[in-house]
Every structure is written in C-alpha cells, then in structure tokens.
C-alpha cells in the first residue's frame, strides 16, 4: 500500500547527514512494518509441547518474552540478539519438573510488571494468580479464587499497582499488589462472564472489559457507577445523515453478537480494536464510544478462545497504523484506518493465538504450538542463502586441495563443515 512507501533509504541517510530529516527512525520503521517475512534462521529453543495460549514481552528492554502453554507451563526466552542466524536461549522455565510453584492448568494471562522487569504476573485456569520475582523465579505472592478467572491486566502508566481480573461470573476484581488487598469487586457483566479486561493506555482509573455476551464496557474504578459507557455496534460515526446514531447509555447495547475474543487499544490512546466470535473486527473511538465505519471483512476466529492482536502505530503520523491479526494458521496485516488488507504471513502449522510487536527491534512474535519471529529482512535472508550456496560450491572445488594440504599435517576430522 502506498501509504507505507517511504523515500529511498540512501536518500534518507543523506538527508539525515545534512540535518534535513528529524523523523529518520519513524520513516525507517514505517518502511519495515508492512514488509515482514519469516525469520527462517532464528529459532527459539523449543520448550512447549502443547499449544501456546499467550505471550508477553517485557516493556523496559523489549528483550524477554514470556510464553504460557495450555498445560500451564511457562517459559522465558531472551529475544536478543536479533541476528539473522541465532538460537534464542531459554532464560527460565516454570513447570512441574523445574518449579514446585507451577500452574497446573492453561495459562490465561501473562503480564510483565510495567515499571521494571523484576516482577511478572501469571494467571491460570487453576484459579490462581501468582506474582513472581523474576530473578529468583519464585512466587512473591499468590491469590486463589473461588471461581475461574479468564483475564488479568495491569495498567502501563507509572506508579500503578492494581491488577484487574475478569471472572467467569461477570465480576471484575481489583487487586492492589502493594497492599495485597483483593476484595474490591465490581459486578460489571452478566452471568455469562468476562472474557477480557484491559486498562486504558493513558489513564490508571479507566478500564475496558469484554463479556462472553458480546458487551464491551468502560468502567471508571473511582466511580460507584457500574460503567460509564457500553460500546454499541449500531452507534456509528458517519457523515451520512440517514444513518441515525443511537445513544450509548442503554445497557442492552452490545459490541459483538457473540463473545469478544480480543480487545486492543491503539497507541494513540483514542481508538480501540475489538474482535468478536461473530467474526467481525471493529474500530471504536474511545472518547465518544462511536464505531468507525471500517470494514476489515470477516475474520475467522474459531478454535482460539482469546486472541491477542498487535498494533503498530507510527508516533509521528497517526494515519500509519497497522494491526497484525491471527487468522487461522496465518497472520493478516491490515491498515487500521482504511481496513485494507496489506499482506498475509504464513508459516504456522496450527491456529495462531497471539501476535506481539516489538517496537524497538521492529519485529513480530507469533505463536501457535511454536513461536515464530518475523522481521523486514527479506533481502538479508536471500543474501545469506546465496552465500551459503556459493560457499557449498566453493567447498566442493577447494576442499580437495585443502584436504591434500592439510592431511599431511593435521588430522582434520573436526575441521570440516
């Protein structure tokens, strides 16, 4: 798509040299965003034997990636260095063989503590929420609930300590990890339960929650009211006068006809993407609750219960916003504001559940039963493949001579590649 075309890199480098380009990084990021290709020679040390239900990238160094499996196993990979050919080591793992405090059921949520990477939080279908000390890989605190919790989230604004948890019975629970208080409960949704909770990016008091009935509610936790807004799919932002807008206060308003599978705020803090079991993805203005008329087409969401989308938005130009959407075994890239589908990434053999965008390394991590890395390195990879081919050919011709020369002096069993 033309929007993501940027000037030739050589001209851009020259403009930077002369002080003519202040947005160099953003422009180079834009160039890469829509051009991801599978990093064939970057592997993560394999660990999970079951499907991976969720992942989380730590936000202080953008380096450590947590992944949690359907069997309750958790592991942490070091995503540095982002070389062309590399095997990413496991930093630690939490399972029944290595850690007594492991989860016994599917991992629902993994959260890095937003301010530093010394803590992380895990929520499992074993009705337990655990807070871990990263360095010791030991639980610092643990909460057990009476009913299932499907989702937990922590605000990314500084100095926050409150974890929001969505329960199967429609209750929202707030846990303050500083005091250990876990009793604050808001009866937010109906009995069908909450699938997802997410704090607003820029406000530590506002919370979005999505229910199995397709409702998406915005709650101000300081207020005694249940929620201050309910998203309604019929409340449409349009210039067309014939389409009447509806007010948003009625409790019957629903965002999706079926359960909500994904809830993702855009980095601009004023838009929200939701993906429902009705196979629709909607874009909302979070300030007035209106749905923007953007058509992404049907998005297949079967097989996966909770889907994590990854949004990338250029800091200097809000119109350049992409979303990476798991779509069966592939990942589709859409331009958020126009709904245009840019490309599709193929490589997984099972349905994909989570996409995570690393904005410092400009790469994408996706998981199904394995974790793959995607980056804009098509040309580099081709060069590498070409060099391996020519090297092979050169070995064929030069090895004989080399062998003759070497054999007289060394036993070279190990030298050969």
């Amino acid at each position: 798509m033309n929007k993501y075309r940027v000037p030739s890199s050589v001209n851009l480098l020259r403009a930077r040299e002369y002080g003519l380009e202040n947005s160099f990084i953003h422009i180079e990021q834009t160039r890469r965003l829509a051009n991801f290709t599978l990093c064939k020679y970057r592997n993560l040390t394999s660990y999970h034997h079951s499907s991976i239900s969720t992942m989380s990238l730590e936000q202080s160094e953008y380096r450590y990636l947590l992944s949690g499996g359907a069997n309750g196993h958790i592991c942490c990979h070091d995503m540095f260095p982002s070389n062309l050919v590399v095997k990413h080591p496991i930093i630690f793992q939490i399972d029944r063989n290595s850690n007594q405090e492991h989860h016994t059921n599917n991992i629902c949520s993994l959260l890095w503590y937003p301010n530093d990477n010394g803590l992380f939080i895990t929520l499992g279908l074993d009705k337990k929420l655990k807070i871990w000390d990263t360095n010791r890989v030991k639980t610092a605190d643990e909460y057990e609930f009476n009913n299932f919790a499907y989702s937990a989230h922590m605000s990314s604004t500084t100095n926050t300590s409150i974890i929001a948890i969505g329960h199967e019975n429609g209750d929202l629970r707030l846990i303050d990890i500083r005091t250990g208080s876990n009793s604050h409960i808001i009866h937010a949704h109906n009995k069908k339960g909450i699938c997802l909770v997410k704090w607003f990016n820029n406000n530590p008091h506002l919370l979005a929650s999505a229910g199995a009935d397709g409702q998406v509610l915005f709650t101000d936790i300081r207020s005694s009211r249940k929620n201050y807004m309910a998203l309604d799919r019929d409340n449409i932002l349009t210039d067309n006068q014939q389409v009447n807008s509806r007010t948003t206060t009625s409790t019957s308003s629903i965002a999706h006809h079926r359960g909500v599978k994904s809830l993702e705020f855009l980095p601009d803090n004023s838009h929200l993407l939701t993906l429902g079991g009705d196979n629709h993805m909607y874009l909302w203005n979070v300030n007035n609750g209106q749905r923007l008329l953007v058509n992404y087409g049907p998005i297949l969401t079967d097989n996966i219960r909770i889907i994590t989308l990854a949004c990338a938005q250029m800091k200097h130009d809000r119109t350049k916003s992409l979303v990476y959407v798991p779509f069966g075994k592939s990942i589709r890239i859409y331009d958020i504001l126009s709904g245009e589908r840019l490309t599709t990434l193929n490589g997984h053999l099972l349905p994909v559940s989570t996409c995570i965008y690393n904005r410092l390394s400009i790469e994408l991590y996706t998981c199904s039963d394995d974790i793959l890395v995607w980056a804009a390195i098509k040309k580099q990879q081709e060069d590498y493949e070409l060099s391996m081919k020519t090297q092979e050919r050169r070995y064929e011709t030069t090895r004989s001579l080399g062998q003759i020369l070497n054999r007289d002096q060394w036993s070279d069993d190990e030298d050969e590649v």
Partner: protein
Amino acid sequence: MAAMNYVVTVQRPTAITALTTGHFTSSTDFNLIVAKNTHFEIYVISSEGLKLVKDVCIYGKITVLKCFRLSNMNKDVLFIFTEKCHGMILDCRKANHDQYDILTKCHGLLKDTGRQPVRQPLCTIDAKHGLILLRIFEGVIKLIYIKELSSKESSSKNLEAYNVKIDEQNIVDIQFLPGHQKPTFIVLHPRTTDTSTINRDPEEYHIRTYQVELKEKDITKLTWKQDMTLSEASFLIPIGQDIFSCLVIGRNVVALYKENDRPLEIESSLLDDEASIVSYCPIDEDGCRYLLTDYFGKLYLLVLERDKRNGSSSTTITDMKLDLLGETSMCEYITYLDNGVTFIGSRFGDSQLIRLLPEPENGSHLEILESYTNLGPIVDMCVVDLERQGRQMPWYVARFTYAIDLLPKRTRVSVRLLNREEALSVCVITFADDLSTPYIAIGTAIIFEDEDTPKIGRIILFRYKNGHLNMITEREINGPPHAMLAFQGKLLVAVGSSIRLYKFSPQTHELTQLTQYLGHIDCLQVKIKDDFVLFNDLMKSITVLRYNVDDGKFEEIAHDVSPQWSTACEFFDDDTFICAEDGGNLISCHKDSGSTKENERNILKELGLCHLGENINVFRHGCLVTQQTAESTISIETCTLMGGVSGYIGLLLQLTSTLYQLLMSLQLALAEYVPSVGKIDHGAWRSFESDGRSDVSCGFVDGDLVETYLDLPKSVQQELIQDLRGENNIPINTTVEELVKIIEELARIH
C-alpha cells in the same frame, strides 16, 4: 572494567537554529539574539554593525527562542524552550564594563507523555495578556501564564502551565491575533475529519480561531474559520489589530483571508514551483511589507497595498505585490534589523548580514555586508598535520554537490556516472600486489526514489599516474556501497548489510571478492584497527570482527545486542568502542575479553551513556596538539575528534581510573555549584534519551562543565574539593593546585 571517557567541545555549534530581536540587554539597546543548537549569542546592533556581547550555553537544544515584553515592563525578556522540554524566561542585566548577567526569572519542565508531532514545537506569545502558547504534543495545547516578571527578587519561579485539549491534529502553525479583548489565536492545519483521515487531499487546509478563557484556563471556539486550497501551506501571519484577518503562505502562493470578505490571492510567476517558502519576517511595525525566502535562497519582498482613499485609518488591503530582491544563503531564519539591514540565519550555509538597496545594483536589490562562517553540516572530516607547525587541524567537508574533487594537488578530474547513478563512497588505496601505484576506488549505486534500497551498483577502480586518472576495472555489486576502506592491501567495502573484502590483481585487472561477512540491516560506517574491523548498523548498533589472515575470513568477535539506531562509530582502544546514535547520544561499548563465559565475551556491554545533544556524523582519530610535556598526566593516544550536523566539533579522550574518579566527583560538585541558565539540572541534560529508552548518564566526564573550574575564584575552588567522594563513597584527597594543573592540561588539548 569501566567506562572512563572525557568529552569536551572543541568548536561550539555554528549552524543557526533560531533567531529573535528585541531590547534584551537594556531598554535602549537593540539586540539580535541567535541560537546555535546548545548556545545562544547576544549581539548589540549599532551603526557600526553587529557586536557580540555575550555567548550563553544552555543545558539543552534550543527549539524555541522568542523575545517579548509584558505591558508593565520597559525592556524585553527571552523565552526559551529546549528539546528535552525545559522552558525558561530569561532576563539580562548590564553590570559594569560591558559585562552582562543572565537571570532566570521563571523555569520549569513542561514535559508530558503524548504523541510527538512531526514538526518542531510551535510557540506564540501574547505579551498583552502575559500568555505563552506551546504546542508540543498532538491534541494538546499548553498555556503558560506569566504575571509578574519585574520583581527584583533573584530566585526563579516555576512556570505556571496548563494543558488544554484541542481537536485539530497535525497543526502547521499557530499565531495569536493581536489587539483582541481576550487572547485570541488562529490555528492552521490540514483539513481532515475522523472518518476521512485516510484519503485527505494534500492541498486542503483549514484555519480556525479560538479564544482563551484566562480564568477558566480553557479555550473556546470562535466563529471565524476558513477552508482553503493551497499547496503546502506553511505559515500564518496575522494582519491588523482587533480584526480576524491573516496571510497564509503556501509553496507558491500567498493568500489573504479576512472575516466576511473574499480571499485575496497572488500566485506570482516569480515563485518557484520547486522551492517552498521557508521563512519570513515583517519589515515595518504596521505590517505592510514582508521579506520572504525560499528553499533555494531567493529573497522576495511582499508589499500589501492598503486603500488610501479613506485616509490612514483604513486597514483594508486592496492588493498584494511580490518582487524578487536577489539571492542569499539558503536560510530558514530571517529578521529585519534596521535601515534596510537584514540578518539571514542559515543551518546549511554561512549566515549573512545584508542591506536592501532601493535601486538595483548588478541586477540585485541587495548587498552582502558581512558573512558569518558556519561549519555545519560536517559530514566528513580528516585530521591534517600541517608541516612544521607541530599541530594538527581538523578539515571538514560540508558538501552539497556530489562532484568529487579527487586529488587536492593540481589535478582535478571529474568522473562521469550513469543516469541515476550516485557515488556513495570513495577511498585511495595501494594494493598488496602493486605497492607502487595509488588507486582510487569509487562505490556507486543506482538510486530510484521509489525503491527502498538500491539493488545495483558498481565499484569503479581508477589508477592514478602522472596526474592522470585511468579507469582500470569495475565490478557490479548488489547493494549500496555505504563505506570503503583500504585494509591490509585489499579493498574493504560495506555493501548493504554485508562487509566484503576484495583483492586486486594488476595482471588480470580484476577485483575478486575474497570473503564476506553478513551483518544485520545496513552497514553504514566501517573502521579498522590492526586485524579488527568495526562497523555500525542502521538499527543494530555496532559489531566487531576480526580478519583471520590464515583462513581469509571474517569472524565475529563481539557485538552490542541493543537495537541502537547508530550514525557513526570508532575504535577507542582494543576493547572499547564508541558509537553515536540518532537521538544525539553517545554510547561507549566494552568488550570483556577476560571473561571465561563465551556468551559474555562476544557481547559488548554498553557501559558509557551520555546525551550530547549533537547529531554526530563522523569520528576521526587525531588530536589538535602533538607535543606533550614530559610530566603529563594524561595520555592523548586515544584522542578522537567528532563532527556533527550543527557544525559542532568535539573531542573524546580516555582517562585513567583515578583521574576519571577525581574528575567525576568534581563534576558532581560543580553541577551543584555552577548556576545553570534556566535551572536545568545537569544530570537531566546529559541523561541518555532516545525513542523508547531513557537512562542516567554514566561513563562520560563532561569536560565543558569540569573546565569551568578554572574560572572560579580560588576560595570556591578550595570549597568545592572539601568533600569529594569517589566510588563506594571513598573520600578523594586532592589540592586545588593539582586539580588546576590537570584541568589546564586537558583544556590545552583542544
């Protein structure tokens, strides 16, 4: 292992980054104030010309510089805003003997979290109501209230600032409309609505007016608004008092808009279609005449003609005229001084003082009175040892054309390249197999604007003999040759993401690729030291390789795993490397050769971090002095010069551990003692800050601060070293004499 570097300014930035005029030094002086990145110069304008009276350094890059006067004052004050979002209001007081004191009246950190706009911060001041308006982040306007500045108290007050939401996105310009009862401002922005953000017409703009409710600390929309179709609208100029009228300047059009009136437009054939207007300034107080400059340095005069029939009181403008006056340096900052004299401030060329002539001389309506040298942008630099002088001088290159002057002496040969082919790198080399003949290698690429990265290029080899240059051979390459070097009698080229080594055979006249190392994204600069090769990548920091002569292969020794958008790199010593980053930061990376763990040995640690505030293009080994006294305590072996976009030249040096601890502890004491203009904390200024990462500064002694020790009175010098503490809080004992001797020695090398 620790980072122990000393960084000091050799040449302050010379490129002009902001201009203002006013009665700053006293109510009778008329001043020109010129900001050059991290410092500003105050000139007094007199009949003899410009006289520099003070040069003031700021802990920050100046992005806004504006003189203004509140209604209850008899002289002007200065508002400054820096890149790290520090704001300040400064006053100047004349002491005896042409000494001027700069006083901070107000200060404050105006940083918010938010989405940074593409453009520089916008600022406009309503002096009548004591209001400064800043647009730093998208969707938010910052209102700064200034009530009382005339008080004699010396302590600085905090800036009183409030954030107000504004709907308009991607604002191009904001200006207060003068003379209204309540502060009223006008906003120019591209026309978009929430639903049509996708397909906006680049020529559709909109202006809207707002009123500031001072008590409520809020803004309300006024009725006057205007749609317009202009190519690249870039400036708003308010016209008249207490009316809703303004000029809008686009790429090749000037338009006048007025409430309840038809717009008046001129599309002069004089205005170049290719070159946008980049700056303007008014000539008279009443706003009838303006000077405009375009991207190519053309200077225009814009005259607004008023309806003369109704006498002088009429403000109705009936016509506009545009005249070409002549050519100056390409300038983004222009200000009219007096008597036809105008100052032209340039980022890319020399600045000029010009006089406008009523009658043309040699076809030009202007006369250049004086030029002020600007070294920036420094894109390359080499250190030349001038014979018999025992001292070295930095030579810098600031090129706008890509013609290559191949050899300095007598010869001047030009090489004809293909259509769209551009030379990216060049080097002089003697090959191992032919030591007697110098060759010149040129790396080129065929550049299409719509191609992400060049896919084809050439290495062209020339032989230099008897003043003649003969093309010997060429070799096709599949990427852009960002850098070239002679390395052990072979040619080392950074092609795209790879480092390649070529040998030349004089018999067959062929360049043969011996080996290559595949890097990351784009290898930008390459440096060599013995067998080692260092290169920096577009976005993957630096990597050290060793060339194994026996195998004829590169092996990776170590690399920095952090994703740094590097611009330049250099060896400090065998285990220390320096790297400059896109956001104006320096990083010193260290190799832990002694480590027993392999994965620690091949990872470079970022032990030194420092914000320089300068975008460095080049590092070069070399020093400006060669002789050193025998009892010298510092070694100048590691001396490295660096050159930046703004014309800045800096010097880096490695210190011994004891010296580093001593100077660092002194720096901490000085940072507390030395008053900073605008009350900006020294630590905040030097802290590492890039897109997505911030860190405290470490491993770099700020020589600019440390060397101010020499200017302090003896009693203060003594007082400052009373309680110096080094690592682990261990007291450091030293004497003033010892410190002064060391710092004088450091000051002497630059």
